[in-house]
């Protein structure tokens, strides 16, 4: 609907439809091919599949109960029984990492969905309607961007008493601005195109034009930004939880596992305890960034296949 070519009745026009449809199919395959050519992106995708998969399967594959304390086994070195060693309460670090990953990834994904939804809506409305609406919304974006994120994050989390759902909400409400600017920019150019004019001519409502017609064409950059955002949220969650202002124990996350590893005794005798949670964060964020970068190149028509 709304695509002018579809309404052309003559033979020439039908041919054109076939061409467009054929092009569509190959466009997706071009994107996939471009993505698969990028070795780092493929590596990232494989890593993410493993990390997300093991986190989801944690209850079945974790070798130990993540909360089982065994004070006789405190700070035990990595061994056959405890592959990555134990922490200061004798809990198995591998099992805690698997379970902690569920929480860290959950925060990252849900906050991303929230931030992208708000950002896309605000950006689409601002870009589509322009004028005063645009000016007001963009000033709002300017104000929120002006706060050094970490100060506002910490203040809000502290005022609201830290908890998992509040953390996600604060993340989403403070981080939609980048997406909003991005989507607004896309809308500013897309709204002048013929297919939007056509949709308007046949009397389509603004809501339908924004979400049904323009948004699908603007999704490329949004998908890239969303992928990179998940990594960013995981980093932010880990830092806040590390400071004791994020997810609270007994729920374990990669960030708050590191809080208790901060002691000279542990640094001297149990290197595995502060090391592995950080490695998990690093690998996860790295993988998201690789995949995001790969998607950016794959979705950008200006980047030509090598």
């Amino acid at each position: 609907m709304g695509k002018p070519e579809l309404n052309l009745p003559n033979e020439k026009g039908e041919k054109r439809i076939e061409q467009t449809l054929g092009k569509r199919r190959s466009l997706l395959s071009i994107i996939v091919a471009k993505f698969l050519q990028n070795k780092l992106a493929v590596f990232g995708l494989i890593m993410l599949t493993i990390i997300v998969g093991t986190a989801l399967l944690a209850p079945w594959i974790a070798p130990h109960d993540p909360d089982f304390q065994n004070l006789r086994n405190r700070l035990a070195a990595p061994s056959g029984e405890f592959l990555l060693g134990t922490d200061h309460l004798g809990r198995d670090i591998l099992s805690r990492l698997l379970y902690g990953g569920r929480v860290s990834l959950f925060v990252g994904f849900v906050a991303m969905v929230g931030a992208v939804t708000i950002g896309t809506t605000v950006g689409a409305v601002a870009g589509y309607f322009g004028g005063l609406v645009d000016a007001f919304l963009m000033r709002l974006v300017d104000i929120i961007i002006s706060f050094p994120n970490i100060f506002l994050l910490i203040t809000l989390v502290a005022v609201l008493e830290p908890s998992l759902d509040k953390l996600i909400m604060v993340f989403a409400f403070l981080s939609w601005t980048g997406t909003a600017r991005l989507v607004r920019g896309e809308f500013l150019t897309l709204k002048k195109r013929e297919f939007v004019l056509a949709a308007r001519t046949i009397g389509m409502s603004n809501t339908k034009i924004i979400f049904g017609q323009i948004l699908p064409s603007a999704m490329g950059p949004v998908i890239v930004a969303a992928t990179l955002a998940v990594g960013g949220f995981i980093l932010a969650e880990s830092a806040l939880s590390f400071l004791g202002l994020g997810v609270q124990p007994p729920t374990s996350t990669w960030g708050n596992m590191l809080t208790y590893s901060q002691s000279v005794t542990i640094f001297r005798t149990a290197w595995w305890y502060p090391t592995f949670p950080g490695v998990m964060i690093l690998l996860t964020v790295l993988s998201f960034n690789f995949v995001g970068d790969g998607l950016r190149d794959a979705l950008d028509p200006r980047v030509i296949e090598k």
Partner: protein
Amino acid sequence: MTTYIIRRLIMMIPILFGISVISFAIMYAAPGKPTVMDLDPDISVEAREAQMERLGLNDPPHIQYINWMSNVVKGDFGTSFTKKQPVRDMIADRLPNTLILMIFSTILAVIIAIPFGVLSATKQYSKLDYGVTITSFLGLATPNFWLGLMLIMLFSVQLGWTPVGGVSTLGGEFNLLDRLHHLILPAIVLATADMAGLTRYTRSSMLEVINQDYIRTARAKGFREKTVIYKHGLRNALIPIITIFGLMLPTFIGGSVIVEQLFSWPGIGHLFISATFERDYPVIMAITMFGAVLTVIGNLIADILYAVLDPRIEY
């Protein structure tokens, strides 16, 4: 140019107003009226009411906002709830430590990131370029606080080369070497926060410049490659890089929160975290406002520098 700067300054007013309203709103909406902690628990209800009245806590929010704001404009951020000191003095005490850390790590980030970014661009697709790219990817994905933990574990505890935290050895006289010894690890950790981004930025800025006509002209004239790259190329590539510093300011202030906490470095960030745990709202709000205003000024400087340095931009 002047009109552009004036226009940019006027644009700052609604932003600063918005920032102050949000800061005030958080303090106002904070659960458990914070000033009650200020009062004696044995005090009678009437006396407490009188105290609340005297402090202006019974006034409607907009009056409270105006009172608070008129003091802030005069540089008076009120008195700390827990330390009973003027907030301004507490910030002034710790600001030098944060500035030293920030300046030192900026220098560190620049002297490492810019040369590597340039080399990475001039030798595009070489082993060195891939190495630099992979390293900056790793740098972007590494949680800053964890890098700090690892460095403390390795250099301070296992090897014993550096102190675990603080600005100087306790009880010692002022000693420049001792200060530097304490500064080195926190500065490295804070520098890495921006190094990766700065390297990538230098690389792409340099790549763009290298493909320009005037570089080909310079080569055609027979200049040595070094002269072409550094004199004709880098000088132009630096324009967008210099403006990036204005934008880096907030990341440095933000990064200092975690680094200072990690290394017990008595600066603004350290003060901010302890104020958060003590719910010392005047301190929290003052630092948030301070950081936001610095961010706005940083953006302004970036925009103006860009306009000044690049004659192609017209306003």
